[in-house]
Structure formats: structure tokens, C-alpha cells
């Protein structure tokens, strides 16, 4: 067992470094209102939150991370621009691997700034990069925004775009949708039958449950409309695939994406943003030819991130989760801001892993 006091000390040291980098220290409660916040997390964190309740406040959960409560705090009464740091324990139920901790420390850093998102991305990333440079970790980066732009630019119905965008974080379902919208997989039999019947509700039998006839007939009309839509062309599918397969050093990946953008102009603004970010990262002294980029990075684990994403991993220790990870989460501020929004980027380091890997100072 790693010494808890060593981890606590490392967490405090990391937070002090974040403070020295200009962040204001903040605290959040361990107990968070479950109902509102749970909905914002991806399925995985949601299923792993410890939920409890008290008679006065109703359902509460032990915070599974800091980002959501910090965003909430900022959206309620933060001044702009803002930069915060925190450290403390987060709690996540482990269901499969007894070796993984169900409570562990995080030390984090978040920037809320609408002036220059690329510079904020670079500031967060280079700070993490430098703080972890003595540990010879492998850095991975990606950009969810490019795939989102690629989806946005498809010549297809808005409904199909919404469906694809919703599943950017679930590669398998995303692929299944692309295959169906492009006509590569046939329409399921049950769907084909349904579309042939004039009044499918006539022989539906008794209705039970909350979902009502209106919702069903609305969906049937949506399906009828969708059946008339043209398939996504194989050319466009090929382009999406080529965006997804971009991987290599950051400078080469940028070139590859620029090439794709020539025939897929919809991703140009997102690729420009990547270029600006890389320039800023390079200006902070990081060699782009040695910085990995993967267009599909972060699609499975990075729940609420919707732009730049990054993670730092111990080489040859695929058994360990990321030592540090983070990214841009503009949409989350929109969801929590009730009409307000602010571009935001941040990340966390896990002091426990830093100590375990011998990187504590």
C-alpha cells in the first residue's frame, strides 16, 4: 500500500504548483446533489457514483470528480476570466478490478476564458507537460472537435447528424449508424415491416407505461421521413474514416488533416483551431514532432470533453489508468450555465499514481 500521507503531501505540492501558475485554490463539498449532476456524467462515471441520501437534501452522491462541481460554482458566481485549482479525494465504485482504488486523490487545474481558447489549451497542456516531465510519461492528444465538425459537414439530414453527434463517444454505435445511414447495412426486418404498414398502431395491443401513443406515432413519422433520405455517400464515409484514422506526430497529423480538409472543407475551421493550438504549444517549447496526436483519442473515456483532449500514461504500464488527463468542455458549461456558457479547459493529475511511479518530489 502506498503511504496515504505521501500521496496527500504530493497532492498539496501539485496544488501549490498550480497556484504558482496563477490558479486560485477552491474547495468543493464531498457530498453533491445527485439528481442534477449525475445526469451530466457519462454512463460509466454515473454508474460508478456512490449515491446516498439524507432526509433534508434528498439524493446525494460522493463527488466522482471536481470538474462538474467547479464548473457549477463558476457558472453561479465566478468572475471572468478565471483559473482554479483544487485537490482532494474523488470516489468511484469499482465493480470489476479489485486492484483499482475506489477513492483516490486528484489535483486539478481549470481555466475559464473566452478570449483565446487555443492559448488556454496550450497553457494547460504545457503546464501539465512540464510538471510531469521528470517522469518520462507518454503524452497522448486528440481533438474531439474535428470529428464533430466532420459530422456537422455531412450532406445528410439534421436528424442523422444529431444521432451521429450523440454517439461520437461510443465508437461502435457511431460506426453502426454510419453503416446504416450510408446503406451499407440493410434496414432491419422489423423496421422494414413497420414502414410498410399503413396504420401500425391499429394492431399494437394495449398500451402500458409512460411512453405514449403520441411518442410512438411521432417516431414512426420520423422513421418514414428518414427512409426517404438519401444515403450518405461512400465518398463521405471514406472521408470520415480517413479523419478517424489520422494518427502520428502532431505536426504530421496536422498536415494529414489539412489534406483531408481540401476535400472536406467543413473541418477547416476545426483544423485551423488545431493549428493555432499547436503553434501555441510549440511556442511553449514542446517539440511537435515528438508529440503524439490521434484523431480518435478520447472517444471512449473522455465523457464530457468536446474539443482538445490529452492524457499522460506510464510507458509499459497499461495496467494503470492515465496519470493525468484533461481537455476542453465548452458544452458542459452550456448545460450547467442555464443559458450562459464559457469556453473552459482543464485537467487533473492523480497524485497516488505519481507517488506509486516514484515521481513525487
Amino acid at each position: 500500500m502506498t503511504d496515504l500521507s505521501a500521496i496527500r503531501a504530493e497532492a498539496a505540492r501539485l496544488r501549490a504548483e498550480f497556484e504558482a501558475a496563477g490558479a486560485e485554490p477552491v474547495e468543493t463539498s464531498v457530498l453533491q446533489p445527485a439528481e442534477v449532476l449525475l445526469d451530466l456524467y457519462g454512463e460509466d462515471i454515473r454508474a460508478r457514483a456512490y449515491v446516498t441520501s439524507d432526509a433534508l437534501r434528498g439524493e446525494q452522491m460522493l463527488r466522482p470528480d471536481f470538474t462538474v462541481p467547479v464548473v457549477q460554482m463558476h457558472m453561479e458566481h465566478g468572475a471572468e476570466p478565471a483559473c482554479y485549482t483544487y485537490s482532494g479525494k474523488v470516489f468511484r465504485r469499482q465493480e470489476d478490478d479489485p486492484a483499482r482504488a475506489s477513492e483516490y486523490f486528484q489535483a486539478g487545474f481549470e481555466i475559464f476564458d473566452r478570449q483565446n481558447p487555443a492559448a488556454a489549451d496550450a497553457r494547460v497542456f504545457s503546464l501539465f507537460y512540464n510538471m510531469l516531465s521528470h517522469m518520462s510519461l507518454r503524452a497522448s492528444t486528440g481533438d474531439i472537435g474535428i470529428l464533430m465538425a466532420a459530422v456537422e459537414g455531412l450532406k445528410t439530414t439534421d436528424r442523422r447528424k444529431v444521432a451521429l453527434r450523440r454517439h461520437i463517444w461510443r465508437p461502435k454505435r457511431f460506426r453502426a449508424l454510419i453503416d446504416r445511414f450510408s446503406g451499407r447495412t440493410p434496414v432491419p426486418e422489423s423496421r422494414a415491416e413497420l414502414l410498410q404498414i399503413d396504420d401500425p398502431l391499429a394492431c399494437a395491443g394495449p398500451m402500458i407505461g409512460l411512453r405514449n401513443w403520441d411518442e410512438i406515432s411521432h417516431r414512426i413519422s420520423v422513421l418514414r421521413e428518414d427512409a426517404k433520405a438519401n444515403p450518405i455517400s461512400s465518398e463521405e464515409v471514406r472521408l470520415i474514416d480517413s479523419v478517424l484514422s489520422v494518427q502520428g506526430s502532431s505536426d504530421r497529423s496536422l498536415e494529414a488533416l489539412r489534406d483531408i480538409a481540401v476535400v472536406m472543407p467543413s473541418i477547416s475551421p476545426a483544423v485551423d483551431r488545431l493549428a493555432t493550438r499547436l503553434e501555441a504549444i510549440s511556442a511553449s517549447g514542446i517539440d511537435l514532432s515528438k508529440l503524439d496526436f490521434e484523431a480518435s483519442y478520447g472517444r471512449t473515456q473522455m465523457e464530457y470533453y468536446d474539443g482538445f483532449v490529452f492524457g499522460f500514461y506510464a510507458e509499459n504500464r497499461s495496467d494503470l489508468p492515465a496519470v493525468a488527463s484533461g481537455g476542453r468542455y465548452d458544452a458542459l458549461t452550456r448545460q450547467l450555465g442555464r443559458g450562459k456558457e464559457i469556453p473552459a479547459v482543464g485537467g487533473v493529475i492523480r497524485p497516488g499514481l505519481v507517488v506509486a511511479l516514484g515521481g513525487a518530489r
Partner: protein
Amino acid sequence: MSLKIGVPSKGRLMEKTFEWFGERGVELGRSGSDREYSGFVQGVENVELILLSAGEIPRELAAGRVHLGVTGTDLVREKLGRWETQVEEIAELQFGFADLVLAVPAAWVDVGTLDDLDAVSAAFRLNHGFRLRIATKYHRLVRDFLRENGVADYQLVDSQGATEGTVKNETAEAIADITSTGDTLRANHLKTLEDGLVLRSQATLFRCLSTPMDLDEKTAWVKLQEMLALG
């Protein structure tokens, strides 16, 4: 010490298990009155029968309190994290068949596949302001299955019994439960999804991997394997 074998303490599962062992020359039975949960083993030396509720057997196996156990594949996979590192499947016993399936109201004529369920979940969340509820007691299995298939915007609600009734009672919109014939589902105006088979389960003999056997137990295990014509 003696080799301990955990067997369901009542009902068809118990009877069928006794039958299965009996056909192979190992007689298992309950001793004393019907209410007393103790048993006997005849035909092989140094094997002890422990009667347990089928639901407890996975944990007893994982903890090493029984060396062998008969229970459903569904219960082992639901109750044990990384089950394959904790127990080993020795033999499928060819009874106690049950499928864990996802089911929705039969009136949902627009829903036939997981793909539909996912789309309906998204719309449901928009219309009702909360995530579509799936009632089940198999949280781990159902969550893993839905994650694997990329279904989103649902929530699992716990239901430890009469799960088929939850939709009518409006405490859930869909269910995931064990069925063998589908009669109960139909009677409750539910239908299964075409690709909604989460797991095929049957009664299975498992062996605990975590606790090593001592010499006596090993001897009994070798003899038992011979009699049961295993491996």
C-alpha cells in the same frame, strides 16, 4: 479437510443437481427434516455437501468457503467482478436454462432492436426530462451489455422481484430479466428485442480458483472428477 460442494438448498435446481450427481454415482441428499439445511454425500469419500441459496453460491465460491458450487452462469457473472479470475467452469449441467433478455412494451411497434431502444431513449429523455428506466436486478450484466452495444441515455433501476410488472406500474419503461419461455413477458404485454439477448444461462458446476486445496481435498477432487467423468 473435506472437499466442500455448494448446492442450491431448495426447489428444482436442488433436485436436478442431486439427479445429475446421482446419475454419475455420487449420491447427494438432504439429511434430517425438510427444514434443516444439511446434507450428505455417498459414493465418494471426504466430500461435504453445503446447502446454500443459489444466489449466495458465487460469493461463497469466490471467498473459498466452498471448493465447488452449482449455480447459474447468470449469477456468477452478475455477482463476481472478473469472474473468470475467481472461478472456473467445470461442467454445464444441461438444466436450469434461462435467458437474460431486454424487453419493452409490445405496444412499442416502432422498437425492434437495440438501435431503436437507443433512439427512443434519446427522445424519451427530451420529452420526459429524465432517462428511460430499465428495471433489473442484473445491473452489471445489463450495463456491460448496453455499453458494449453503445446504448445511451438510459438508467437502471433496481428491481428484485416482479420485474415484469414495473412497466405497467410506471416505475420503469423497459426491463431486463430472466425468462425461459417468454410466457410471463407476453402476459405482461412485453416483447423482447431482436438483438436483446444479454446472456444465455444454465446451471453450471464451478470450481473456486482462489483457495488452494490441501492434500485430502485434492484426493477427493481427483476421485470426484473421475466419477463425474470430467476433464
